[in-house]
Protein backbone atom coordinates (compact mmCIF):
# COMPACT_ATOMS: atom_id res chain seq x y z
CA UNK A 1 0.00 0.00 0.00
CA UNK A 2 1.25 3.45 -0.95
CA UNK A 3 2.10 5.86 1.86
CA UNK A 4 4.18 8.99 1.09
CA UNK A 5 7.67 9.23 2.51
CA UNK A 6 9.43 12.41 3.61
CA UNK A 7 11.57 13.69 0.76
CA UNK A 8 14.73 15.75 0.66
CA UNK A 9 12.70 18.09 -1.54
CA UNK A 10 9.90 18.71 0.98
CA UNK A 11 8.96 22.36 1.47
CA UNK A 12 10.26 24.25 4.53
CA UNK A 13 8.08 25.19 7.52
CA UNK A 14 6.34 28.00 5.62
CA UNK A 15 5.95 26.00 2.44
CA UNK A 16 8.93 27.29 0.48
CA UNK A 17 10.86 25.30 -2.12
CA UNK A 18 13.94 27.51 -2.21
CA UNK A 19 12.51 30.97 -2.99
CA UNK A 20 9.35 29.47 -4.52
CA UNK A 21 6.04 28.38 -3.04
CA UNK A 22 4.84 30.01 0.18
CA UNK A 23 1.40 31.36 1.03
CA UNK A 24 0.55 34.63 -0.72
CA UNK A 25 -3.11 34.89 0.21
CA UNK A 26 -5.39 37.40 1.93
CA UNK A 27 -5.23 37.15 5.74
CA UNK A 28 -8.84 35.88 5.79
CA UNK A 29 -7.58 32.60 4.31
CA UNK A 30 -4.55 32.15 6.54
CA UNK A 31 -6.40 30.42 9.41
CA UNK A 32 -7.97 28.05 6.85
CA UNK A 33 -4.57 27.23 5.35
CA UNK A 34 -3.00 26.71 8.76
CA UNK A 35 -5.87 24.40 9.71
CA UNK A 36 -5.45 22.48 6.45
CA UNK A 37 -1.71 22.21 6.98
CA UNK A 38 -2.19 20.83 10.49
CA UNK A 39 -4.64 18.27 9.16
CA UNK A 40 -2.36 17.32 6.27
CA UNK A 41 0.54 16.84 8.69
CA UNK A 42 -1.60 14.66 10.92
CA UNK A 43 -2.73 12.36 8.11
CA UNK A 44 0.25 12.51 5.73
CA UNK A 45 1.80 9.26 6.98
CA UNK A 46 -1.23 7.85 8.77
CA UNK A 47 -1.79 4.21 7.67
CA UNK A 48 -5.52 4.38 8.49
CA UNK A 49 -5.99 7.40 6.20
CA UNK A 50 -4.04 5.73 3.42
CA UNK A 51 -5.99 2.52 3.89
CA UNK A 52 -9.15 4.47 3.14
CA UNK A 53 -7.57 6.06 0.05
CA UNK A 54 -6.24 2.69 -1.03
CA UNK A 55 -9.74 1.23 -0.86
CA UNK A 56 -11.02 3.81 -3.35
CA UNK A 57 -7.90 3.51 -5.50
CA UNK A 58 -8.35 -0.22 -5.97
CA UNK A 59 -12.13 -0.59 -5.91
CA UNK A 60 -13.24 2.69 -7.51
CA UNK A 61 -10.41 4.08 -9.65
CA UNK A 62 -8.98 0.77 -10.83
CA UNK A 63 -5.44 1.16 -9.54
CA UNK A 64 -2.72 0.15 -9.98
CA UNK A 65 -2.69 1.52 -13.50
CA UNK A 66 -0.77 -0.73 -15.90
CA UNK A 67 2.75 0.04 -17.08
CA UNK A 68 2.22 -0.93 -20.69
CA UNK A 69 5.07 -1.94 -22.99
CA UNK A 70 4.36 -0.04 -26.21
CA UNK A 71 5.88 -2.61 -28.59
CA UNK A 72 5.01 -0.82 -31.83
CA UNK A 73 6.37 2.55 -30.69
CA UNK A 74 9.45 0.81 -29.30
CA UNK A 75 10.17 -0.94 -32.58
CA UNK A 76 9.67 2.22 -34.61
CA UNK A 77 11.97 4.26 -32.36
CA UNK A 78 14.62 1.63 -31.59
CA UNK A 79 14.06 2.08 -27.85
CA UNK A 80 12.01 0.50 -25.07
CA UNK A 81 8.95 2.62 -24.39
CA UNK A 82 6.58 2.02 -21.51
CA UNK A 83 3.38 3.97 -20.98
CA UNK A 84 2.05 4.57 -17.47
CA UNK A 85 -1.64 4.22 -18.14
CA UNK A 86 -3.23 6.94 -16.00
CA UNK A 87 -5.66 7.33 -18.89
CA UNK A 88 -7.34 4.12 -17.73
CA UNK A 89 -8.31 5.59 -14.36
CA UNK A 90 -11.96 6.22 -13.58
CA UNK A 91 -12.81 9.70 -15.00
CA UNK A 92 -10.05 9.34 -17.57
CA UNK A 93 -6.96 10.95 -16.09
CA UNK A 94 -4.59 11.17 -13.15
CA UNK A 95 -6.70 13.94 -11.56
CA UNK A 96 -8.83 11.45 -9.60
CA UNK A 97 -5.85 10.31 -7.46
CA UNK A 98 -5.68 13.74 -5.90
CA UNK A 99 -9.38 14.50 -5.53
CA UNK A 100 -10.12 11.29 -3.65
CA UNK A 101 -7.52 12.13 -1.03
CA UNK A 102 -8.59 15.79 -0.78
CA UNK A 103 -12.24 14.76 -0.59
CA UNK A 104 -11.48 12.48 2.34
CA UNK A 105 -9.48 15.27 4.00
CA UNK A 106 -12.41 17.68 3.51
CA UNK A 107 -14.66 15.21 5.31
CA UNK A 108 -12.18 14.85 8.16
CA UNK A 109 -12.20 18.66 8.52
CA UNK A 110 -15.99 18.56 8.69
CA UNK A 111 -16.46 20.60 5.50
CA UNK A 112 -19.59 19.74 3.54
CA UNK A 113 -18.95 21.93 0.50
CA UNK A 114 -16.15 21.66 -2.02
CA UNK A 115 -15.11 23.99 -4.82
CA UNK A 116 -12.61 23.56 -7.63
CA UNK A 117 -11.29 25.40 -10.64
CA UNK A 118 -10.96 23.66 -13.97
CA UNK A 119 -9.45 24.36 -17.38
CA UNK A 120 -10.16 21.45 -19.71
CA UNK A 121 -12.77 20.22 -17.29
CA UNK A 122 -10.93 17.05 -16.19
CA UNK A 123 -10.31 18.27 -12.65
CA UNK A 124 -13.86 19.61 -12.52
CA UNK A 125 -15.26 16.25 -13.58
CA UNK A 126 -13.04 14.40 -11.10
CA UNK A 127 -14.10 16.74 -8.28
CA UNK A 128 -17.79 16.48 -9.20
CA UNK A 129 -17.35 12.69 -9.26
CA UNK A 130 -15.96 12.34 -5.75
CA UNK A 131 -18.41 14.95 -4.46
CA UNK A 132 -21.19 12.66 -5.71
CA UNK A 133 -19.43 9.65 -4.19
CA UNK A 134 -18.80 11.26 -0.81
CA UNK A 135 -22.01 13.27 -0.51
CA UNK A 136 -20.39 16.71 -0.74
CA UNK A 137 -21.95 19.83 -2.25
CA UNK A 138 -19.85 20.86 -5.26
CA UNK A 139 -19.32 24.10 -7.20
CA UNK A 140 -16.92 24.31 -10.14
CA UNK A 141 -15.35 27.50 -11.54
CA UNK A 142 -14.51 27.43 -15.22
CA UNK A 143 -13.60 30.23 -17.63
CA UNK A 144 -16.46 31.13 -19.97
CA UNK A 145 -14.20 30.43 -22.97
CA UNK A 146 -13.44 26.93 -21.65
CA UNK A 147 -17.11 26.32 -20.88
CA UNK A 148 -17.79 26.89 -24.57
CA UNK A 149 -14.95 24.73 -25.89
CA UNK A 150 -15.42 21.88 -23.39
CA UNK A 151 -19.19 21.59 -23.38
CA UNK A 152 -19.19 17.82 -22.94
CA UNK A 153 -17.26 18.06 -19.69
CA UNK A 154 -19.55 20.85 -18.50
CA UNK A 155 -22.50 18.53 -19.12
CA UNK A 156 -20.71 15.72 -17.26
CA UNK A 157 -20.19 17.93 -14.21
CA UNK A 158 -23.83 18.97 -14.22
CA UNK A 159 -24.94 15.36 -14.65
CA UNK A 160 -22.86 14.49 -11.59
CA UNK A 161 -24.75 17.12 -9.62
CA UNK A 162 -22.22 19.97 -9.55
CA UNK A 163 -22.99 23.63 -10.10
CA UNK A 164 -20.77 25.13 -12.81
CA UNK A 165 -19.90 28.86 -12.75
CA UNK A 166 -18.88 30.27 -16.15
CA UNK A 167 -16.31 32.91 -15.21
CA UNK A 168 -16.64 36.04 -17.36
CA UNK A 169 -13.69 38.06 -16.09
CA UNK A 170 -10.25 38.61 -17.64
CA UNK A 171 -9.22 36.13 -20.33
CA UNK A 172 -12.11 33.81 -19.36
CA UNK A 173 -9.80 30.79 -19.03
CA UNK A 174 -8.18 28.77 -16.23
CA UNK A 175 -6.34 31.76 -14.70
CA UNK A 176 -9.60 33.64 -14.25
CA UNK A 177 -11.42 30.53 -13.04
CA UNK A 178 -8.78 30.32 -10.28
CA UNK A 179 -9.27 34.01 -9.43
CA UNK A 180 -12.98 33.48 -8.94
CA UNK A 181 -12.51 30.20 -7.07
CA UNK A 182 -10.20 32.07 -4.66
CA UNK A 183 -12.77 34.89 -4.31
CA UNK A 184 -15.46 32.34 -3.50
CA UNK A 185 -13.13 30.58 -1.06
CA UNK A 186 -12.26 33.83 0.77
CA UNK A 187 -15.98 34.41 1.20
CA UNK A 188 -16.88 30.86 2.29
CA UNK A 189 -13.65 29.65 3.90
CA UNK A 190 -15.38 28.59 7.11
CA UNK A 191 -17.43 25.81 5.55
CA UNK A 192 -15.87 25.22 2.13
CA UNK A 193 -12.88 23.08 1.13
CA UNK A 194 -10.99 24.16 -1.98
CA UNK A 195 -9.89 21.07 -3.93
CA UNK A 196 -6.90 22.44 -5.86
CA UNK A 197 -6.27 20.42 -9.01
CA UNK A 198 -2.53 20.63 -9.37
CA UNK A 199 0.77 21.07 -7.51
CA UNK A 200 0.18 24.80 -7.23
CA UNK A 201 -1.54 27.35 -5.02
CA UNK A 202 -0.60 28.29 -1.46
CA UNK A 203 1.16 25.86 0.90
CA UNK A 204 0.34 23.09 1.73
CA UNK A 205 -1.31 22.39 -1.65
CA UNK A 206 1.81 21.95 -3.84
CA UNK A 207 3.40 19.39 -1.55
CA UNK A 208 0.12 17.76 -0.56
CA UNK A 209 -1.01 17.25 -4.17
CA UNK A 210 2.47 15.90 -4.98
CA UNK A 211 2.07 13.34 -2.17
CA UNK A 212 -1.38 12.40 -3.47
CA UNK A 213 -0.12 12.01 -7.06
CA UNK A 214 3.18 10.31 -6.21
CA UNK A 215 1.39 6.97 -6.16
CA UNK A 216 1.98 7.10 -9.94
CA UNK A 217 5.76 7.09 -9.54
CA UNK A 218 5.63 4.63 -6.66
CA UNK A 219 3.77 2.11 -8.82
CA UNK A 220 5.81 2.85 -11.95
CA UNK A 221 9.10 2.27 -10.16
CA UNK A 222 8.01 -1.13 -8.84
CA UNK A 223 6.53 -2.07 -12.22
CA UNK A 224 9.63 -1.19 -14.27
CA UNK A 225 11.90 -3.01 -11.82
CA UNK A 226 9.71 -6.08 -12.11
CA UNK A 227 9.58 -5.99 -15.91
CA UNK A 228 13.08 -4.77 -16.77
CA UNK A 229 15.04 -5.36 -13.54
CA UNK A 230 16.47 -1.91 -13.84
CA UNK A 231 15.51 1.77 -13.58
CA UNK A 232 14.52 3.73 -16.70
CA UNK A 233 16.90 6.14 -18.42
CA UNK A 234 14.19 8.76 -18.88
CA UNK A 235 10.80 9.52 -17.36
CA UNK A 236 8.73 11.95 -19.43
CA UNK A 237 5.57 13.85 -18.48
CA UNK A 238 3.68 16.92 -19.69
CA UNK A 239 3.31 19.99 -17.46
CA UNK A 240 0.54 22.53 -17.05
CA UNK A 241 0.54 23.10 -13.32
CA UNK A 242 2.64 19.95 -13.14
CA UNK A 243 0.85 17.39 -10.97
CA UNK A 244 1.10 14.31 -13.19
CA UNK A 245 4.79 15.13 -13.74
CA UNK A 246 5.54 15.72 -10.06
CA UNK A 247 3.60 12.54 -9.28
CA UNK A 248 5.59 10.25 -11.54
CA UNK A 249 8.96 11.98 -11.04
CA UNK A 250 8.79 11.88 -7.25
CA UNK A 251 10.03 8.29 -6.94
CA UNK A 252 12.89 8.75 -9.44
CA UNK A 253 14.28 12.14 -8.38
CA UNK A 254 16.85 10.72 -6.03
CA UNK A 255 18.24 8.28 -8.65
CA UNK A 256 21.10 9.96 -10.48
CA UNK A 257 20.83 7.54 -13.41
CA UNK A 258 17.24 8.56 -14.16
CA UNK A 259 16.65 11.72 -16.17
CA UNK A 260 13.21 13.20 -15.51
CA UNK A 261 11.95 15.45 -18.31
CA UNK A 262 8.98 17.80 -17.98
CA UNK A 263 7.30 19.03 -21.15
CA UNK A 264 5.70 22.46 -21.26
CA UNK A 265 3.21 23.62 -23.91
CA UNK A 266 5.10 25.27 -26.76
CA UNK A 267 1.87 26.49 -28.37
CA UNK A 268 2.61 28.22 -31.67
CA UNK A 269 6.33 28.31 -30.76
CA UNK A 270 8.28 29.86 -27.91
CA UNK A 271 9.42 32.79 -30.03
CA UNK A 272 5.77 33.84 -30.43
CA UNK A 273 3.61 35.21 -27.61
CA UNK A 274 1.29 32.18 -27.83
CA UNK A 275 2.60 29.42 -25.60
CA UNK A 276 2.53 28.14 -22.02
CA UNK A 277 6.27 27.91 -21.28
CA UNK A 278 6.49 29.55 -17.86
CA UNK A 279 9.92 28.07 -17.17
CA UNK A 280 11.53 28.75 -20.54
CA UNK A 281 10.07 32.20 -21.10
CA UNK A 282 8.77 33.41 -17.73
CA UNK A 283 10.29 34.87 -14.57
CA UNK A 284 9.74 34.62 -10.82
CA UNK A 285 6.58 36.21 -9.48
CA UNK A 286 3.49 35.74 -7.33
CA UNK A 287 0.11 34.54 -8.53
CA UNK A 288 -2.66 32.43 -7.03
CA UNK A 289 -1.07 32.12 -3.64
CA UNK A 290 2.44 31.07 -4.60
CA UNK A 291 5.74 32.34 -5.88
CA UNK A 292 6.83 30.56 -9.05
CA UNK A 293 7.76 31.18 -12.66
CA UNK A 294 5.09 33.22 -14.44
CA UNK A 295 4.46 34.59 -17.89
CA UNK A 296 4.35 38.31 -17.15
CA UNK A 297 5.16 41.65 -18.73
CA UNK A 298 7.73 44.27 -17.68
CA UNK A 299 5.34 45.64 -15.06
CA UNK A 300 4.48 42.28 -13.49
CA UNK A 301 1.07 41.96 -15.18
CA UNK A 302 0.17 38.35 -15.89
CA UNK A 303 0.08 37.42 -19.57
CA UNK A 304 -2.33 35.04 -21.22
CA UNK A 305 -0.94 31.63 -22.03
CA UNK A 306 -1.80 29.63 -25.11
CA UNK A 307 -1.95 25.92 -25.77
CA UNK A 308 -4.09 23.73 -27.96
CA UNK A 309 -4.67 21.77 -24.78
CA UNK A 310 -6.82 23.61 -22.23
CA UNK A 311 -5.08 21.69 -19.42
CA UNK A 312 -1.71 23.27 -20.26
CA UNK A 313 -3.14 26.72 -21.01
CA UNK A 314 -1.93 28.44 -17.83
CA UNK A 315 0.66 31.23 -17.36
CA UNK A 316 2.25 29.67 -14.25
CA UNK A 317 3.65 26.37 -12.99
CA UNK A 318 3.83 24.58 -9.64
CA UNK A 319 6.53 26.05 -7.37
CA UNK A 320 8.37 22.76 -6.87
CA UNK A 321 8.97 22.62 -10.63
CA UNK A 322 10.37 26.16 -10.47
CA UNK A 323 12.76 24.92 -7.79
CA UNK A 324 13.80 21.79 -9.72
CA UNK A 325 14.32 23.88 -12.84
CA UNK A 326 16.79 26.17 -11.06
CA UNK A 327 18.31 23.27 -9.13
CA UNK A 328 18.77 21.13 -12.25
CA UNK A 329 17.10 18.07 -10.70
CA UNK A 330 14.58 17.90 -13.56
CA UNK A 331 15.12 18.80 -17.24
CA UNK A 332 12.44 20.82 -18.99
CA UNK A 333 11.63 21.15 -22.66
CA UNK A 334 8.57 22.03 -24.74
CA UNK A 335 6.38 20.68 -27.53
CA UNK A 336 4.35 22.84 -29.93
CA UNK A 337 0.65 22.49 -30.76
CA UNK A 338 1.51 20.97 -34.14
CA UNK A 339 3.94 18.42 -32.70
CA UNK A 340 1.37 17.44 -30.07
CA UNK A 341 -1.37 16.95 -32.67
CA UNK A 342 0.96 14.79 -34.76
CA UNK A 343 1.68 12.65 -31.70
CA UNK A 344 -2.04 12.45 -30.92
CA UNK A 345 -2.60 10.73 -34.26
CA UNK A 346 0.66 8.76 -34.07
CA UNK A 347 -0.12 7.06 -30.75
CA UNK A 348 -3.73 6.44 -31.78
CA UNK A 349 -2.58 4.55 -34.89
CA UNK A 350 0.57 2.89 -33.55
CA UNK A 351 -0.88 1.51 -30.32
CA UNK A 352 -4.65 1.99 -30.52
CA UNK A 353 -4.49 4.41 -27.61
CA UNK A 354 -6.01 7.88 -28.02
CA UNK A 355 -4.19 10.21 -25.64
CA UNK A 356 -5.42 13.50 -24.18
CA UNK A 357 -4.00 16.57 -25.94
CA UNK A 358 -2.00 17.24 -22.76
CA UNK A 359 -0.41 13.78 -22.72
CA UNK A 360 0.22 14.03 -26.47
CA UNK A 361 2.89 16.61 -25.59
CA UNK A 362 4.80 13.98 -23.59
CA UNK A 363 4.40 11.40 -26.38
CA UNK A 364 5.63 13.92 -28.97
CA UNK A 365 8.86 14.35 -27.06
CA UNK A 366 9.84 10.79 -28.02
CA UNK A 367 10.21 12.06 -31.59
CA UNK A 368 11.86 15.30 -30.57
CA UNK A 369 14.61 13.29 -28.84
CA UNK A 370 15.88 12.20 -32.29
CA UNK A 371 18.74 9.73 -32.26
CA UNK A 372 19.38 10.24 -28.56
CA UNK A 373 16.47 7.88 -27.95
CA UNK A 374 18.20 4.77 -29.40
CA UNK A 375 18.36 1.82 -27.00
CA UNK A 376 17.01 3.86 -24.09
CA UNK A 377 14.51 2.58 -21.55
CA UNK A 378 11.79 5.20 -21.19
CA UNK A 379 8.58 5.67 -19.22
CA UNK A 380 6.04 8.19 -20.50
CA UNK A 381 3.25 9.21 -18.18
CA UNK A 382 0.11 8.88 -20.25
CA UNK A 383 -1.76 11.20 -17.91
CA UNK A 384 -5.15 11.18 -19.60
CA UNK A 385 -7.28 9.80 -22.40
CA UNK A 386 -8.44 11.76 -25.41
CA UNK A 387 -12.21 11.31 -25.15
CA UNK A 388 -12.68 14.84 -23.88
CA UNK A 389 -10.79 16.21 -26.89
CA UNK A 390 -12.86 14.54 -29.61
CA UNK A 391 -14.97 17.62 -30.40
CA UNK A 392 -11.86 19.80 -30.77
CA UNK A 393 -9.94 17.09 -32.66
CA UNK A 394 -12.81 16.78 -35.11
CA UNK A 395 -12.45 20.44 -36.08
CA UNK A 396 -8.65 20.16 -36.45
CA UNK A 397 -8.20 16.82 -38.24
CA UNK A 398 -9.76 15.56 -41.41
CA UNK A 399 -9.49 11.95 -42.58
CA UNK A 400 -10.83 11.26 -46.06
Amino acid at each position, binding site marked *: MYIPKPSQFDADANGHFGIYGGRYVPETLMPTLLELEASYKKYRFDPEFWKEINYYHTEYVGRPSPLYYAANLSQELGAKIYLKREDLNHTGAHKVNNVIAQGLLAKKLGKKKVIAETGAGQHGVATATIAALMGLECEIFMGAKDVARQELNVFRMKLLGAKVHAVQSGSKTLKDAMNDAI*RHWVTHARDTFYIVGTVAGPHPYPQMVRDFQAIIGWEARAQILEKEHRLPDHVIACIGGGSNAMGIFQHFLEDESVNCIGIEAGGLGIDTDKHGCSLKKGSAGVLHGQMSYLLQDDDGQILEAHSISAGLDYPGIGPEHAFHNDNGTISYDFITDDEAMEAFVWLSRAEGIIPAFESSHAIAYLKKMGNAIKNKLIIVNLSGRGDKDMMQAKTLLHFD
Partner: protein
Amino acid sequence: MHKKLVAYITSGLPDNSFTIDLALAMADAGVDSIELGIPFSDPVADGPIIERANLTALQQGVTFADVKAISRVIAPIIDTLWMGYFNSFYHQGMEKLLQEAQAMRLSGMIIPDLPYEEAVAYAHLFAQHHVANITFVAPTDSDARIATLVENAQKFIYLVAYAGITGSGQSEELEGVVASIRTHTATPVYVGFGVNAQTARDKARGVDGVIVGSAFVDILLRDALSQSAKIDAVAALAREIKEKINS
Protein backbone atom coordinates in the same frame (compact mmCIF):
# COMPACT_ATOMS: atom_id res chain seq x y z
CA MET B 1 -11.90 61.26 18.98
CA HIS B 2 -11.94 62.27 15.35
CA LYS B 3 -12.40 59.18 13.16
CA LYS B 4 -10.32 58.89 10.02
CA LEU B 5 -11.32 58.26 6.43
CA VAL B 6 -8.94 56.40 4.13
CA ALA B 7 -9.97 56.43 0.47
CA TYR B 8 -8.93 53.98 -2.22
CA ILE B 9 -8.74 55.18 -5.82
CA THR B 10 -7.39 53.33 -8.85
CA SER B 11 -4.39 55.15 -10.37
CA GLY B 12 -4.51 56.67 -13.82
CA LEU B 13 -8.22 56.14 -14.38
CA PRO B 14 -8.48 57.72 -16.92
CA ASP B 15 -5.13 59.57 -16.65
CA ASN B 16 -2.52 60.80 -14.17
CA SER B 17 -3.58 64.44 -14.02
CA PHE B 18 -7.17 63.43 -13.26
CA THR B 19 -5.99 61.18 -10.42
CA ILE B 20 -3.92 64.05 -9.00
CA ASP B 21 -6.86 66.49 -9.17
CA LEU B 22 -9.12 63.85 -7.64
CA ALA B 23 -6.75 63.11 -4.74
CA LEU B 24 -6.31 66.79 -3.93
CA ALA B 25 -10.08 67.38 -4.06
CA MET B 26 -10.56 64.43 -1.72
CA ALA B 27 -8.01 65.91 0.69
CA ASP B 28 -10.05 69.14 0.70
CA ALA B 29 -13.21 67.12 1.33
CA GLY B 30 -11.75 65.69 4.55
CA VAL B 31 -10.15 62.46 3.39
CA ASP B 32 -7.25 61.75 5.73
CA SER B 33 -5.25 59.31 3.61
CA ILE B 34 -5.24 58.29 -0.02
CA GLU B 35 -4.80 54.64 -0.86
CA LEU B 36 -3.43 54.83 -4.39
CA GLY B 37 -4.27 51.62 -6.22
CA ILE B 38 -1.72 49.93 -8.47
CA PRO B 39 -3.72 48.22 -11.20
CA PHE B 40 -3.12 44.46 -11.42
CA SER B 41 -4.35 41.88 -13.90
CA ASP B 42 -5.55 39.42 -11.25
CA PRO B 43 -6.94 41.27 -8.20
CA VAL B 44 -8.25 38.28 -6.22
CA ALA B 45 -9.13 40.17 -3.04
CA ASP B 46 -11.34 42.58 -4.95
CA GLY B 47 -14.94 42.45 -6.04
CA PRO B 48 -16.30 43.26 -9.52
CA ILE B 49 -16.15 47.08 -9.22
CA ILE B 50 -12.46 47.39 -8.33
CA GLU B 51 -11.59 44.51 -10.64
CA ARG B 52 -13.20 46.37 -13.54
CA ALA B 53 -11.34 49.56 -12.58
CA ASN B 54 -8.05 47.61 -12.53
CA LEU B 55 -8.61 46.05 -15.93
CA THR B 56 -9.78 49.33 -17.45
CA ALA B 57 -6.68 51.13 -16.16
CA LEU B 58 -4.45 48.40 -17.58
CA GLN B 59 -6.15 48.63 -20.96
CA GLN B 60 -5.34 52.35 -20.88
CA GLY B 61 -1.68 51.47 -20.31
CA VAL B 62 -1.29 52.49 -16.66
CA THR B 63 1.98 51.20 -15.16
CA PHE B 64 3.79 51.43 -11.85
CA ALA B 65 5.68 54.41 -13.29
CA ASP B 66 2.36 56.31 -13.43
CA VAL B 67 1.63 55.45 -9.81
CA LYS B 68 5.02 56.86 -8.83
CA ALA B 69 4.49 60.00 -10.91
CA ILE B 70 1.14 60.65 -9.21
CA SER B 71 2.62 59.92 -5.79
CA ARG B 72 5.44 62.42 -6.23
CA VAL B 73 2.84 65.18 -6.60
CA ILE B 74 0.27 64.18 -3.99
CA ALA B 75 2.31 62.52 -1.21
CA PRO B 76 3.79 65.83 0.06
CA ILE B 77 0.23 67.24 0.28
CA ILE B 78 -1.91 64.35 1.54
CA ASP B 79 -0.89 61.23 3.42
CA THR B 80 -0.46 58.59 0.68
CA LEU B 81 -0.19 54.81 0.72
CA TRP B 82 0.06 52.35 -2.15
CA MET B 83 -2.40 49.50 -2.44
CA GLY B 84 -1.69 46.64 -4.80
CA TYR B 85 -0.87 42.97 -5.21
CA PHE B 86 2.53 41.67 -4.24
CA ASN B 87 3.65 40.73 -7.75
CA SER B 88 3.63 44.40 -8.78
CA PHE B 89 5.81 45.35 -5.81
CA TYR B 90 8.11 42.33 -6.10
CA HIS B 91 8.68 43.00 -9.77
CA GLN B 92 10.11 46.44 -8.94
CA GLY B 93 12.60 44.96 -6.49
CA MET B 94 11.59 45.57 -2.87
CA GLU B 95 14.76 47.33 -1.75
CA LYS B 96 14.82 49.77 -4.64
CA LEU B 97 11.08 50.36 -4.39
CA LEU B 98 11.21 51.15 -0.68
CA GLN B 99 14.06 53.60 -1.28
CA GLU B 100 11.96 55.37 -3.89
CA ALA B 101 8.87 55.28 -1.67
CA GLN B 102 10.77 56.91 1.17
CA ALA B 103 12.15 59.59 -1.15
CA MET B 104 8.66 60.51 -2.36
CA ARG B 105 7.33 60.52 1.25
CA LEU B 106 4.97 57.61 0.85
CA SER B 107 3.71 56.58 4.28
CA GLY B 108 2.74 52.97 3.74
CA MET B 109 1.94 50.00 1.54
CA ILE B 110 -1.20 47.89 1.65
CA ILE B 111 -0.58 44.47 0.10
CA PRO B 112 -3.48 42.08 0.69
CA ASP B 113 -1.70 38.98 -0.64
CA LEU B 114 1.42 39.42 1.49
CA PRO B 115 0.39 37.91 4.82
CA TYR B 116 2.48 38.05 7.99
CA GLU B 117 4.53 34.90 7.25
CA GLU B 118 5.67 36.14 3.83
CA ALA B 119 6.13 39.75 4.96
CA VAL B 120 8.70 38.80 7.60
CA ALA B 121 11.44 38.65 4.96
CA TYR B 122 10.86 42.32 4.09
CA ALA B 123 10.20 43.72 7.57
CA HIS B 124 13.72 45.16 7.95
CA LEU B 125 13.44 47.00 4.61
CA PHE B 126 10.13 48.59 5.55
CA ALA B 127 11.58 49.64 8.91
CA GLN B 128 14.81 50.96 7.41
CA HIS B 129 12.92 53.19 4.98
CA HIS B 130 10.20 54.30 7.42
CA VAL B 131 7.38 52.98 5.28
CA ALA B 132 4.59 51.08 7.09
CA ASN B 133 3.58 47.68 5.80
CA ILE B 134 -0.06 47.78 6.86
CA THR B 135 -1.16 44.82 8.98
CA PHE B 136 -4.38 43.06 8.03
CA VAL B 137 -6.60 41.37 10.61
CA ALA B 138 -9.52 39.22 9.43
CA PRO B 139 -12.64 38.13 11.31
CA THR B 140 -11.44 34.53 10.82
CA ASP B 141 -8.34 35.17 13.00
CA SER B 142 -8.03 33.71 16.48
CA ASP B 143 -6.91 35.81 19.45
CA ALA B 144 -3.54 34.04 19.43
CA ARG B 145 -2.97 34.83 15.78
CA ILE B 146 -4.09 38.44 16.25
CA ALA B 147 -1.47 38.82 18.99
CA THR B 148 1.24 37.76 16.53
CA LEU B 149 -0.06 39.84 13.63
CA VAL B 150 -0.37 43.16 15.47
CA GLU B 151 2.79 42.98 17.52
CA ASN B 152 4.72 45.31 15.22
CA ALA B 153 1.76 46.96 13.50
CA GLN B 154 2.35 50.52 12.37
CA LYS B 155 0.19 53.45 11.30
CA PHE B 156 -3.12 51.57 11.42
CA ILE B 157 -4.54 48.06 11.39
CA TYR B 158 -6.67 47.16 8.38
CA LEU B 159 -9.55 45.19 9.85
CA VAL B 160 -11.34 43.28 7.12
CA ALA B 161 -15.07 43.74 7.84
CA TYR B 162 -16.13 40.27 6.70
CA ALA B 163 -14.75 37.10 5.14
CA GLY B 164 -15.05 38.01 1.49
CA ILE B 165 -13.97 40.40 -1.25
CA THR B 166 -14.20 44.19 -1.46
CA GLY B 167 -17.48 45.93 -2.14
CA SER B 168 -19.94 43.19 -1.21
CA GLY B 169 -22.96 43.78 0.98
CA GLN B 170 -21.93 41.33 3.70
CA SER B 171 -21.42 42.19 7.33
CA GLU B 172 -20.13 40.36 10.37
CA GLU B 173 -20.09 40.94 14.11
CA LEU B 174 -16.64 42.47 14.77
CA GLU B 175 -16.86 43.40 18.44
CA GLY B 176 -14.85 40.38 19.58
CA VAL B 177 -12.11 40.86 16.99
CA VAL B 178 -11.77 44.55 17.82
CA ALA B 179 -11.60 43.77 21.54
CA SER B 180 -8.91 41.19 20.84
CA ILE B 181 -6.87 43.66 18.79
CA ARG B 182 -7.19 46.30 21.52
CA THR B 183 -5.76 43.98 24.17
CA HIS B 184 -2.61 43.48 22.10
CA THR B 185 -1.87 46.91 20.60
CA ALA B 186 -2.59 50.62 20.80
CA THR B 187 -2.29 51.01 17.02
CA PRO B 188 -5.53 52.51 15.61
CA VAL B 189 -7.98 50.12 13.99
CA TYR B 190 -9.62 51.06 10.67
CA VAL B 191 -12.28 48.88 9.15
CA GLY B 192 -12.49 48.28 5.41
CA PHE B 193 -14.59 46.23 2.90
CA GLY B 194 -18.20 47.13 2.20
CA VAL B 195 -18.05 50.64 3.71
CA ASN B 196 -20.27 53.15 1.88
CA ALA B 197 -22.62 56.03 2.69
CA GLN B 198 -25.25 53.62 3.97
CA THR B 199 -22.99 51.44 6.11
CA ALA B 200 -20.33 53.94 7.26
CA ARG B 201 -21.87 54.88 10.60
CA ASP B 202 -22.40 51.26 11.67
CA LYS B 203 -19.04 50.07 10.43
CA ALA B 204 -17.20 52.90 12.23
CA ARG B 205 -18.66 51.93 15.59
CA GLY B 206 -15.93 50.93 18.00
CA VAL B 207 -13.05 51.57 15.58
CA ASP B 208 -10.83 54.55 14.77
CA GLY B 209 -11.50 54.95 11.08
CA VAL B 210 -12.88 53.46 7.88
CA ILE B 211 -11.40 52.52 4.52
CA VAL B 212 -13.63 53.11 1.51
CA GLY B 213 -12.87 51.84 -2.00
CA SER B 214 -15.64 50.40 -4.18
CA ALA B 215 -18.08 53.23 -3.35
CA PHE B 216 -15.63 55.82 -4.75
CA VAL B 217 -14.47 53.70 -7.67
CA ASP B 218 -18.07 53.07 -8.67
CA ILE B 219 -18.35 56.81 -9.36
CA LEU B 220 -15.09 56.79 -11.36
CA LEU B 221 -16.50 54.07 -13.62
CA ARG B 222 -19.65 56.01 -14.56
CA ASP B 223 -19.08 56.82 -18.20
CA ALA B 224 -21.97 59.29 -18.30
CA LEU B 225 -20.25 61.67 -15.85
CA SER B 226 -17.75 64.31 -16.95
CA GLN B 227 -14.39 64.37 -15.18
CA SER B 228 -15.34 67.38 -13.06
CA ALA B 229 -18.69 65.80 -12.19
CA LYS B 230 -16.85 62.65 -11.02
CA ILE B 231 -14.57 64.71 -8.79
CA ASP B 232 -17.57 66.60 -7.36
CA ALA B 233 -19.48 63.37 -6.70
CA VAL B 234 -16.49 61.68 -5.05
CA ALA B 235 -15.80 64.74 -2.88
CA ALA B 236 -19.46 64.94 -1.85
CA LEU B 237 -19.47 61.26 -0.92
CA ALA B 238 -16.24 61.69 1.05
CA ARG B 239 -17.77 64.60 3.01
CA GLU B 240 -20.91 62.56 3.69
CA ILE B 241 -18.98 59.52 4.93
CA LYS B 242 -16.62 61.64 7.02
CA GLU B 243 -19.58 63.30 8.69
CA LYS B 244 -21.41 60.03 9.29
CA ILE B 245 -18.48 58.26 10.93
CA ASN B 246 -18.05 61.21 13.26
CA SER B 247 -21.68 61.66 14.20
